């Protein structure tokens, strides 16, 4: 499946901003089942300087500074990607989940490839693993259960236990609160899922990306009405590698999921981070359009 994606972020400030310094992560990244075909990031007004580089997780980061007075900032990320989708994981045999648990305090025993996995076993700025998350997860992670089955069960568990509610949390809400409320949005669900998996001793990362949404039956597709999305990636051993699951939609990621970046939690992959000098009042508009190219 090929997509053309246009993601526009528009800031309008009430007064003129003299300087702004921004760091954006808006470029879809290649993965086992995704290939980025083309990408262009446009910034208006034109920045005085910009740098492009990969962060330690391999995500593509753009940093730029605008040092002339401006009262509007528009960043447009346009991409073309090809999604092959994950293999039909529900039917795949997988090892017992316990075989993938590692005591994080123990030294590695010469297995170098583990270094790709280990950073995702630990606490991170927004995720503090703990017994309450582990306990929640044990309902799905029964003893000896194959990891894909257990992971799918946790996906369903979160899907059923948590209510999707835009107004109950915001981007700064600690996951403990969303966990208590049993409410939130995809970001909360994904971070809670990561917390549960890490608390059980597994390696899990947070993925930000796009989700193609289908128009209601009989309606035209609305341009710009798609959304950024978030899900998790779970390490399932050398053979299966990282497997992506979307608890918000109770599914393994398929042809509709387009990853942009992954990290330990939301804070590693914040799409737009910036600091500006000037009056703080501003208006923000974001539009995402995920359009199949066939």
């Amino acid at each position: 499946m090929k997509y053309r994606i246009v993601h526009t972020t528009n800031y309008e400030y009430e007064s003129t901003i003299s300087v702004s310094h921004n760091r954006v992560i808006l470029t879809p990244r290649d993965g086992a089942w995704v290939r980025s075909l083309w990408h262009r990031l446009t910034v208006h007004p034109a920045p005085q300087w910009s740098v492009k580089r990969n962060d330690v997780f391999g995500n593509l980061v753009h940093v730029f500074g605008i040092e002339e007075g401006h009262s509007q900032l528009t960043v447009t990320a346009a991409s073309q990607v090809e999604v092959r989708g994950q293999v039909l994981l529900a039917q795949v045999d997988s090892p017992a989940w316990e075989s993938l648990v590692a005591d994080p305090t123990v030294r590695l025993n010469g297995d170098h490839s583990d270094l790709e996995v280990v950073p995702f076993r630990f606490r991170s700025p927004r995720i503090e693993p703990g017994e309450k998350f582990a306990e929640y997860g044990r309902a799905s992670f029964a003893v000896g259960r194959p990891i894909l089955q257990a992971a799918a069960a946790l996906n369903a568990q979160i899907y059923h236990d948590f209510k999707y509610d835009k107004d109950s949390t915001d981007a700064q809400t600690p996951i403990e609160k969303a966990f208590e409320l049993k409410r939130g949005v995809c970001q909360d669900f994904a971070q809670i899922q990561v917390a549960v998996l890490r608390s059980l001793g597994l390696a899990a990362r947070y993925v930000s990306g796009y989700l193609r949404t289908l128009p209601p039956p009989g309606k035209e597709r609305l341009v710009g009405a798609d959304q950024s999305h978030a899900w998790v990636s779970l390490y399932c051993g050398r053979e299966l590698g990282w497997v992506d699951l979307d608890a918000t939609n109770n599914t393994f990621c398929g042809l509709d999921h387009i990853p942009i970046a992954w990290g330990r939690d939301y804070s590693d992959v914040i799409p737009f981070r910036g600091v500006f000098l000037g009056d703080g009042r501003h208006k923000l508009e974001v539009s995402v359009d995920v359009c199949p190219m066939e």
Partner: protein
Amino acid sequence: MQTRNLFEYVTRPEGSYDEMFDAEGHVRENWRPLQSELNRLGPLELQRRMQQADEQIANHGVTFNPYDLSEGASRPWSFDAVPVLYSAEQWRDIGAGLEQRARLMELILQDLFGPQDLLKSGIVPPYFLYAHPGYQPAYHGLARPGQPYLTLYAADLARDSSGKLWVTGDRTRAPFGLGYVLENRLIAANLFLDAFQACRVQRLASFFQALHRTLVAAAPQGNANPHIVVWTKGPGSRSFFEDAYLARYLGYTLVQTDDLAVRNNQLMLKTLGGLLPVDVLWRRVNDENCDPVELHSRTGGVAGLLEVLRSGNVAIVNGLGSRLVESPLLAVWLPRIAEYFSLGPLRLPTKPTWWCADENSFHWVMAHLNEVVILPAFRMGNVAPLYPADMSQAEKQALVHRIRSQPAAFVAQQKIERSTTPVWNGDHVKHWPLALRGFVLGSEGGHRTLQGGLARVAWKPQNLDQSPTSGEKCQDVWIQGHRSAPPTDAASSTAGPITLKRSGTELPSRVADSFFWLGRNIERAEFGARLMRIALQLLLNEREGILEGSRVLRALAESGQIEPDLIVPGMKETLPVLTSSLPRSLFSDDLPMGFRSSLDHVIRLSAGLRDRLSTDSWRIINRMDALCARRPASDLPDVADATELLDMLISIMSAFSGFVAENTTRTLGWRFLDLGRRIERAQQTVSFLEVMFGQTNQFGGLVIESALQVLDSLMTYRLRYLTTLHPVAACDLLLHDQSNPRSVAYQLDMIELHVSHLPSDPQQAEIRVDQRLAVAMKHSVRMTSPEKLMVTDDDQRPELQQLLQRLNDQLSELSQTVSSRYLVHAPLQRHFASLLAQHDSPRSDKSE
């Protein structure tokens, strides 16, 4: 002369090691010159010299504490004159051990943020890196090839009863203490000059010269004359004194976060003249507070700094991420790591350390709780170790429970034993436990130990373990040489050419701001004191109605020096109240514009300008603070005492003005200070004149006399007009006379002069708003005549009121214009609101 052995009273605990005496109680060979000098001087002379030293410290502004009501900002220790001595051989060994550790820590950091061989080969578990609360992914890939992480490294040492030295902690972020080492030396060397020479004490200066060379070499693009700044946390922080001291000693600019900005991927210092590039950043702030855009703690920093670092456009010392190896947990693997890097066995090992996450270690620790101290595995700040041996059974159980629930978060370290060293107690020598800090400079060329150190002493050894700044006193550390070291000059002296500079516009805007408000507040305090003095004199005068008639009370209330409700009508009854409330107002915190508040501002602002004010100015500010120390209500001065106090304060403040006038170079800093003063004096005088002369009353003569007195112009007036008190003459002298340094006209002349010297944008041809205002005010006074102004209409003087009112408004406007143009150069940084909108996606229809 009779000499007495000061050391005869010594009693030493059995089985401990003393730095000065051997096990048989004999003075160690290398301490003899010091012992004989101390004995020769005798207790009285020693005590006298100690007091001298204390004064010297006070004069350095060291004891000066800008936040005496808050905690922690003051000098952490008092100074003890007796130094700690190490022979050349002893220090050679210690130095070799310190350098080995510095090298080791450097290699560990390079590996953890680089190839991670230590993790891959199973020597260090990944937990050490990734579970550290200070770990940030952004630290990977920041280091520049060839640029070490640890330009400065420090280790804390303790000696056990057998004489063996152990490391109790490593400091790798921004080791504290070098400023104090310098200052201790300055004082101790002078106190015992003979012993200092006889001991052939090694100099400190060469270390700092090497540090300077290292920082210069670190500058990007081989800039031979780089701009080096010391980035301090600010005057509220514990290390501020030291930051300022080091900056001044080495000739670097002291900056705070708000002084810095990134433009075009280059680090800049905001100055009055615009933005100046910074080449080397010696940071004293925490790693995670360096860049709010890239690092996870959103507590300040310079947006974009990390990108500048990656581009190699600035060098940072010490490298970001350095603090990770301060963790006590690292000690568990240190010997194996040293072996791995082929550095041989550790010459200075850490105290044996056990990680509670390891099962065997855990059981050992539980069985030997009384022999260990418990520490957090990761060091993020100063956390005092816990001593299970000193705990009650219940406390111990609670601790065991905590460890059991989170074993990986704790390490146990063998209890620290310490040697003792002589300390002067005012009469004889006592022996206190010692903590020694050594410093190592790391550069591309290799490592080098400071020939000296910081010694902390406390009567109770555990007081030294609490934090690197705990302990009661600090001492100088003398490293003896085989030959006396040739004296060397301080900071940097190079043979190369130097570009001569005159007052620069490179003054940071924040500094200019502090100078401006320092000027305003000193003036406000002085004006308040003068008003109050006259009020008290009138209060002592028994003639009825005189105080009320003089209007001075109203002027006091008007300028915020007293509570306004003290001037209600029917003053007669309130007179007894006034005798106690007027002196009280001097010390009152509740009056935001009052004397005490102004003085507090003076103290706070001068603290921020510590590196730019002379020692003499310091002494004066210190003395004012001491005279006006807050005191209990029972201890408030009566009217007569208060008058005396005010006399003293006013002469001290005049002395400060004198120092500033005579001893400050006419740089922009001085100009802002004086501009602040002039604006404040003009404004105070203008509103004072309005209160005094805006209306007439039957006490005309008294009002004139009081006004002349407050404005320090009575003498001049008498010389001109003898005893005739005429309002027009007074108005001329106080408002129009440009030769009277207290007149409004004089202030306006000075204001115009200062404003015309402020930096201009060369591309802007038109005259600036601040200049226009200054000229307008000057002329508006000149164009009026005293006779006309003093014309009365009923009991009002409308012309005068109008002029003064307009001047008042224009002065406020000028102050604001100057502020927004030059001073508040740094509008607040704002973060984009976090974008929830980008990350909330509804459930898609199909999966329902």
